[in-house]
């Protein structure tokens, strides 16, 4: 809990039953902030999908007088969006003595509702829109690229890989400040190779053939990077067909595990996919002594269902970056067009010693020190710096 943020008196606590109920519970439990019904204007929108929170500084004499209004627009119910929204609110209120009015609106995939919400925000002189999730970012990039209210994206995949903008330069003319849930593949590879597996010869990438966004934002950039820049490492794709897991995945895992000559010359890398994470036990089993890594920090968790190590960007870290961009824009320190695409340079590292392949494979101290989440040999948490244990 952030000590100086107190709750605004709730008018009516009806959100627990709404689509935003889980978010309000999280806000309450984490930041002790309560959701309240929004003003009359916002009642034009579906009531169960909109809520308002207001924050104020506990030291009244430090009031700046200015209330900052932010619209947080999300496309669906998602634990990731809840985590991201909570972190973002926490970061903003922690940094600033200003008061905030934040309207959360879940447009449930209905773009008309999203456009209505934006108009309402414009009419009520809102200061900022947070675009939560890749679908919202896609929508705003298409419809609101040159809008009057600045936009910061959060919990969204890399905008260049998604084709929303072609380059950094193009971003300079828009009113959107992009952040990315993906770290640069170069950073990812250098972490894997230089900091740990110095003898690495092959990265076998496991991806869901139906998950196009992970193919676009994770698989293809990695393939291009290895083929063009790191020719000493072979790119080995494992395209998973969930209808034929044995042939498309398990037999390939076994083959690589069998052909590995030396510990650490091959690794498996799982892309961000819930479906793949659901079969992680089997992947670990067939992988044998080859380390299983992931690009998603949430793939490292307590107990059996975990990969050995994840090197990527957590939702929390991305949200903190988005909060930093939001803070700068709100305080007139910069314009969205002046901000580079926000890619986290130092990835979040999570390690589960329970899934460390063999005892001879040791974890470099530098990675251990950088890891925010560590589980011990029994799968119990040893360090949880940014992870919320469920």
């Amino acid at each position, binding site marked *: 809990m952030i000590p100086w943020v107190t709750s605004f008196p709730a008018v009516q606590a009806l959100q627990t039953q709404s689509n935003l109920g889980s978010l309000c519970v999280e806000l309450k439990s984490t930041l002790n902030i309560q959701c309240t019904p929004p003003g009359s204007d916002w009642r034009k929108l579906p009531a169960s999908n909109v809520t308002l929170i207001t924050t104020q500084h506990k030291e009244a004499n430090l009031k700046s007088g200015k209330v900052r209004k932010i619209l947080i627009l999300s496309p669906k119910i998602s634990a990731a969006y809840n985590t991201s929204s909570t972190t973002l609110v926490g970061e903003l209120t922690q940094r600033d003595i200003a008061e905030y009015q934040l309207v959360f609106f879940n447009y449930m995939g209905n773009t008309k509702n999203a456009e209505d919400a934006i108009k309402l925000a414009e009419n009520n002189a809102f200061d900022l829109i947070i675009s939560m999730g890749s679908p919202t970012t896609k929508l705003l990039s298409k419809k609101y690229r040159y809008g009057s209210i600045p936009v910061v994206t959060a919990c969204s995949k890399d905008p260049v890989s998604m084709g929303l903008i072609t380059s950094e330069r193009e971003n300079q003319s828009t009113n959107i400040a992009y952040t990315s849930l993906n770290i640069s593949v170069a950073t990812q590879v250098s972490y894997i190779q230089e900091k740990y597996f110095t003898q690495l010869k092959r990265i076998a990438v496991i991806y869901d053939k139906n998950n196009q966004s992970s193919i676009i934002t994770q698989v293809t950039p990695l393939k291009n990077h290895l083929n063009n820049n790191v020719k000493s490492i072979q790119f080995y794709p494992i395209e998973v067909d969930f209808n034929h897991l044995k042939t498309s995945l398990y037999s390939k895992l076994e083959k690589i595990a069998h052909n590995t000559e030396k510990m650490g010359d091959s690794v498996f890398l799982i892309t961000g996919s819930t479906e793949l994470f659901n079969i992680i036990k089997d992947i670990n089993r067939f992988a044998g002594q080859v380390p299983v890594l992931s690009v998603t920090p949430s793939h490292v968790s307590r107990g059996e269902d975990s990969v050995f190590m994840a090197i990527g960007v957590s939702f929390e870290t991305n949200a903190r970056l988005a909060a930093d961009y939001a803070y700068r824009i709100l305080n007139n320190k910069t314009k969205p067009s002046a901000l580079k695409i926000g890619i986290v340079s130092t990835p979040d590292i999570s390690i589960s*010693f329970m899934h460390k392949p063999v005892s001879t494979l040791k974890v470099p101290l530098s990675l251990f020190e950088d890891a925010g989440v560590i589980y011990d040999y029994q799968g119990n948490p040893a360090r949880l710096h940014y992870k919320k244990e469920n």
Partner: protein
Amino acid sequence: MKLLNKAIPIHFVLALSISLLVFIGIGECYRVYPAIQFNNLCNQAELLKSSIETNLKLGVPLEFKGFKQRALELSQKSEQINQVIIVPGYQTGKINSQNKTISPENKSTVALNCNNNDEMLNKSLNIDWRSILFMPGKAVDYQITMNLSNKFTTVGQLKITPTANIFTQEISFRFNKIISTSILIVIFTPFIILFCKNILPANAEVVQKAIYHLCFLVIGIVIVTNMLQLYSKSIKQQSHSLAYSLSERLDTPLELGFDLYDDLSGFKQLLEEYRKKSNDISHIYLIKQNNVVSSSLAENYEDFNLPVSLNSPPCDSYKLNPTSDQFINSCLPLGKSDYTLLVLTPWVKIYNKLWRATRNILVLFLASSLISNIILNVLLSVQAQTRKQRSSKVGEQRQSPLKNKIDSPQVEFSNRKKNKKHQLKQPLALQIIKPVFALGTLIEAINISFLPSYFSDIFRDSGYSVSLAFGIYFIFFAITLIPAGRWAEQHSHKRMILAGLLISVVALASLYTAESVWLILILRAVAGIGQGLLFISVQSYLLAIENEYKGIKCSDQIVIGYNVSMISGAAIGGLIMPILGEVTTFLAGALVGTCCLIYTLIMVKDIKQSDTSSDLIKKSSPKLQLGQLLQDKLILRTFLLVGFPAKALFTGVLILIMPIMLRSKELSTDTIGQILLFYYIGVLFTTKILAEMSQLFKRTEWVLFSGCVGSGIGLLLISAQGWLPDSNEMVLILSGILMLGIFQGLIHAPVISYIVTCQSANQIGRSTVAAAYRFLERLGHVMGPSIATFFLLQNDGSINNQHMVTIAIAIILMAVAFILLSHSKTVLVKA
């Protein structure tokens, strides 16, 4: 009262030289000790910052109570840190560079930046004279501010307040005692000297000098001993605080339930990182029970290593090695685990730091001895003169009065050296004039070690070569010589000396504020005029003494005086510049010049000049003299093949190129000054040998030939350093410079003896030929820097060694040509 009158001059000389020694000692401590303390402080601060930032990057908020706890622990455990505050604050955009010194809120607090090097730290530190001189000093508050960043931005600051007077307190404490001892020595030694002189009147001079040097040596030893204690204590603290910080970091995985050796790797890199943080630590070992898990050893220390399996407790393990007493150790167990951290620092690191201080003190001893010898000789001569006067008054009724007043100087023959009774004692007037020339030249020599690099900084981007500043000095020096010589024939030498000194002092003092290139060039020209006037007036004064006192030879006094000044000036200047800074050193030089001016005003009396001393200058114009001289083949040959190259080599290579070359090797100013001393010591040595053993060097042309060939070989040695490994290059440079000095000494005085054997000398007079030749020689001085810049300095400021070889070979070939062209007539050395 009489005793006091006798003692006061000795008090004065002793106080002056011991003050200089203590001052250099304090400066040396201020150069080394604060840097060690600061390094230690920054290591601790950076390690805390790095540990906090690691957690910030993991997502831990700055408000995490553990950070405050760590800060508190550090301030409680560290002897260097008084307070550590973590200040939250999101100032993105305002503070984003860690290289920038962040100003503290309190303006009286001095902000320090850990990215500053030692030299910048020293500039920000002022010597706390108040507390050194027993008065309660004003505490200076320092603060180190470091930005704390997470993955994206600066989230706060770490403000570290060092312990009050951390950089100066220990120095003040120790020098309080040293100064007390020095004051007692200065007060009582003169009385001891006088007492001993009364007991041993036959060896009065030896006693006086021996006791004087003994005092100097005693104070020097006391200073060096204190430095040893000071440096070893601070280096021990440094190694201990690093060991402590490293142990804290290694404790973390242990506390989380992991084993360092079984679960983790990469300790080698971690130990390397820590070892390199301190230049002094040589070994770090991570030991589990009795087994070495990981280690990091500095280069050159691989010989000393612990076995993988130890037979004794980890903290005592290193003691089994026979050379273990060469190390200071810090041994820390890691928490409650069976791991131990052992950090070793070799004593030799402390001795190296001390060696520089000891070397500086030895050099200062040499410099101070040379100058104080001249002043002591004046004192002894004046005292002897006074005794004579008293005895003459007693014997007045029995014999005619002696002409022994200072204002009408007479020869004083005394028992200077019992075993050389045949030698004449130098007259009082000669003893009195020696300090004038020595101090007058010294004020320029003080700058020799740093002037090229100082001017290089100012002249950078100005479009002018730094050699211009040296060229212009020698041009004006040279063009002053002949008019000054003519003036000296008809006017008071004393006034001319005063004018020369005054001009030199003004030119030097004005450099204090001079920042524009043009003003510097003008001031160098003025300084050249001043030094030219001083040179010619002292030379004329010496000639007048020679004429007045038949049998006294003064010709080598100029060479000796010049080189004594260069040795003392370069040494003292090189030592005081790092303490005072360049411009204040100019002022210090001007102050010495002013003292010399006052001394001249009081002590020096004009000598009546004989008619024969003006020779050609009275008879003909300078143009006619030079024209006639240049037609003389001997003079032309000697000038072109010997004099010109020798002088150009001196100004071009020694004055201009060597300081730049040595600076490029990252040598400090005092070291550069001390290296250049070898040249002057060489010249002084040869000049003395030539004066004492002139019979051995009968054929002057062969002496000059040897001088030129030796100089060429010396230059070859210097140039060879470019092709050899670093460890050998300093040996070559030192040998080359010493050789250059020794062999140039074979040219400086003998060349005049050789020149005056020419036919023209019979027609226009020996003195005139000598004076005019000196003028011609100055062209070598003038052209030296330009030739050196053109051939030796490359565009990037580095030295072209290949061209240096070419020049060396050219000098040797010119010497061969000279000897082949010389007539076979034997010329006796008359140096």
